[in-house]
């Protein structure tokens, strides 16, 4: 069991990082609001509480790198690409959508970013892509998964092959302590570190909501994957501050309070209230305008 995230004082945060974290936060909140209003079709999985992880990761990636994302992937995309309108158009099925509205929230393929909705499915695919990177020497594959994903056999097949064949594959685990409604201790025996050790795969874990601390812990690992052409697993301890999808949170009040206390947002508003307030106003307005803009567009077309 990973302990609660506790940070006494955060390190100073760049405007770019904080802005992006806040943009993702307001993007996700806007989606939940649209659902409540009955203006969004289907389902979505927001990354509330986890936004700082992809913001920390993305700065360490190059455009040549491939990113594999999962069902909870809006933050992964928004941290890498400055294209929130296109993502929102995808989720709402409007003109300008990344994938013409066919893929929706969890099936995005844009440049070198690909997400898919089956747990663990992307890891063997990422190994294949990483093997090509190994051959051409031009990048790495980075795959985001959750702690729940470790129940899938494909994860182990992928780690085994990646280690055997020297695939430059970075696996970023957003360990949010819960798989839909099942607490991690009820679905994961042993530890992720122990499982990585079994394959001889390098593993690092960070327990911090500080985007600089997360990035600082990850940087040597990314460098290792790039230089040594080996796989590595980076486990970031986070709290899922929102529901699994929408309105399906069965956690107790105490558990929700703990998740809220572990949310990076609470820490940043406490330590940098003026900076957060100023940037938040900008990002909130930006997202609101984006929602208005995208929802006014014609429906997407697919041929």
């Amino acid at each position: 069991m990973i302990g609660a995230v506790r940070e006494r004082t955060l390190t100073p945060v760049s405007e770019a990082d904080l802005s992006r974290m806040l943009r993702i936060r307001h993007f996700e909140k806007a989606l939940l609001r649209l659902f409540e209003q009955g203006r969004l079709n289907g389902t979505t999985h927001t990354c509330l509480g986890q936004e700082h992880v992809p913001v920390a990761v993305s700065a360490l990636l190059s455009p040549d790198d491939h990113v594999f994302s999962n069902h909870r992937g809006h933050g992964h995309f928004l941290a890498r690409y400055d294209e929130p309108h296109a993502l929102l158009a995808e989720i709402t099925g409007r003109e300008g959508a990344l994938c013409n509205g066919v893929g929706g929230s969890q099936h995005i393929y844009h440049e070198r970013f690909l997400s898919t909705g089956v747990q663990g499915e992307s890891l063997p695919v990422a190994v294949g892509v990483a093997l090509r990177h190994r051959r051409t020497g031009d990048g790495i594959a980075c795959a985001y998964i959750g702690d729940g994903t470790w129940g899938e056999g494909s994860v182990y097949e992928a780690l085994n092959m990646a280690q055997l064949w020297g695939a430059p594959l970075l696996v970023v685990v957003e360990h949010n302590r819960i798989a839909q409604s099942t607490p991690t201790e009820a679905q994961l025996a042993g530890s992720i570190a122990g499982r990585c050790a079994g394959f001889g795969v390098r593993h690092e874990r960070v327990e911090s909501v500080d985007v600089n601390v997360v990035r600082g812990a990850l940087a040597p690992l990314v460098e290792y994957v790039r230089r040594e052409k080996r796989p590595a697993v980076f486990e970031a301890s986070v709290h899922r501050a929102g529901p699994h999808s929408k309105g399906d949170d069965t956690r107790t009040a105490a558990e929700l309070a703990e998740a809220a206390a572990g949310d990076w947002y609470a820490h940043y508003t406490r330590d940098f209230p003026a900076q957060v307030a100023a940037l938040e106003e900008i990002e909130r307005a930006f997202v609101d305008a984006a929602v208005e803009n995208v929802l006014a567009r014609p429906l997407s077309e697919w041929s």
Partner: protein
Amino acid sequence: MRVAEHLNRSLHTLMENDPSVHLLGEDVSDPYGGAFKITKGLSDRFGPRVMSTPLSEGGIVGVGAGLALAGDRAIVEIMFGDFATLAFDQLVNFAAKSTTMYGRRVDVPLIVRLPTGGRRGYGPTHSQSLQKHFIGVPGLSVYEMSPFHDAGRLFTEIFDSGRPAVFFEDKVLYTKPMLSGGDGLHTFEVRDGWAVIRAERDTEHVLLAPGGLTDRALAALRDLLLEDEIACTLLVPARLHPLDVTPVADVLAAARRVHVAEDGTAGGTWGAEVARLLHERLWGRLTAPITHISAPDSIIPTAAHLEARCTVQPADIRRAINT
């Protein structure tokens, strides 16, 4: 040349002509060269482009899909077709869906080779014909090797299509010779992905069967012609799904009785899909409903006398056609 050797030579030529082709599978490297020796000599020649893998059918199909997405072309050998079930997610939910689910055409040049079928005594988990489980999967093509078709051309056709494919190879067919010209009674003609085997033009009876049934279908055709005085044309498609019957429309137009044979077990089969498609086209011209010949709804036993009961035999085909 035997079919196994033809497949092997086709892979050699393919990898020689196209450096983007990679091949993965369990025990495919030399000196072993695969459980059925189809990949012999490839690793010695093409080095790291040929990879012997861990026992991870799902994983290696995913790796193949990843290579294909990133710009390579991948062939994955699964040692026994039965084990394709372990790769069902990667094939159905990833490789096949990826061709369209991102809202635009995405090429996934991936071939999953599946040694298949019974009649070798390997028992229930190493003998089944799983074609029917892959029929009608959006984005996925289903091919089957025949002794009439050039495997290299089929592999190239699949890669050029951009769609992933499962490629079934009957394990007994491996030991049979490639066929061309004719057998003294019938002429063998290949046109646009179909083999047309017939003793005369415009026969009343037409039998459709995948390549793995060729030896048994030919035996039945000979008996029908010589002993029952029934001329039947055999049609063997290389691509089972999607099935395009246009190239053999003339043969079908002349038919009054159509029969479909396959090695899959009864129920929800490829043959049923073919019958549906042909009933729509030929209704009114046929003098009887389309006949369906398949293995019974059963696992494939190991002992030879039991296995024979649960696999399609020449006599089953002959009986279905002459009654």
